[in-house]
């Protein structure tokens, strides 16, 4: 019984997670909880820096992040 409950919780949790595909290496990317659009993340496979362009239900559109520009800073 307990195991079934755990499996259901696991399935539920994984369903609420955001998944996407790395546009550089095609690996599956799992996005952290609380991720925001316009945030920069990195692909755990190829380590490319990626921009979270748009978040929809349980997926997100990712693009390769731009190089740092000369006027970037604090």
């Amino acid at each position, binding site marked *: 019984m307990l195991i079934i409950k755990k499996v259901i919780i696991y399935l539920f949790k994984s369903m609420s997670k955001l998944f996407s595909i790395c546009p550089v290496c095609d690996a599956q990317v799992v996005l952290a909880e*609380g991720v*925001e*659009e*316009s*945030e*920069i993340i990195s692909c755990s496979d190829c380590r490319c820096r990626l*921009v979270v362009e748009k978040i929809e239900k349980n997926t997100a559109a990712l693009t390769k*992040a731009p190089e740092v*520009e*000369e*006027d*970037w*800073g*604090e």
Partner: protein
Amino acid sequence: MPTIGLFHSTVRAEEKLIIRAAREKKAGIKLIDIRNEVFNPLHYRPDFDIALERSVSTVKGGYATEFLEALGAVVINPSGVARICEDKFLTSLALQKTGVPTLKFAMAFSLEQAMAAVADLGGFPVVVKPPLGSWGRMLAKVNDRDSLEAIIEHKDVLGSPQQKAYYLQEYIQKPGRDIRSFVVGGETICAIYRTSSHWITNTALGGKATNCPVTKELSQLSLQAAKAVRGGILAIDIIETSEGLKVNEINHTMEFKNSEEPTGVSISGAIVDYCLQKINSND
């Protein structure tokens, strides 16, 4: 509900902390990616009570601020503050003019003038910086005339027009660390030491952040510096010299993600409170 318009480009950890702080305080927060906006004064309708400018791009952030102010919106930090803080030479001038202890500095546009400036500053080593740079990029500690020549030739051949204005500072032998204090609305809320074995101690480049007690001296110097540039929400970079604390430079869209934990102070919370306070005082 009072609403903060958070003008951003790339969302950094800092922006996420600000968003979270606003939600916790039940303040409205509207995320506005400036790269998705059309800033046309005939059509733009601000739908927030105050704008918080947090763009990673200094140029875009600067234009957004000027635009919003032209429409009558209140922007934190205001354009006047941003214009001074984004430029190290203007910051030095503002500090010097108001008598805030700061490093000796000069600007020159050619090698011979730069050599004369070095002599004025007390000789080598000096530090050469792009006036508009950040994150410790392209800073150079210059030990002799040969290196100065090489650096200036590089900038002359490869640099943008901005890079061809040489901002020079005396080099300070510091105790392996510098200080960053945070000023929000006329109060020094906390400070960190940035420690590194390299003379460039920026945490973005691997320097370590630890709590720095806010002494009366540190607090007063920070407030004086903030007043000199008429801010707002600022991070003041301070160096410990043999003649006491001196202000190196000031940041107007400061990064602070590594500073909340060691100081135990919610910098993001203070930023949100300051914005809410400004909304109330402008009503």
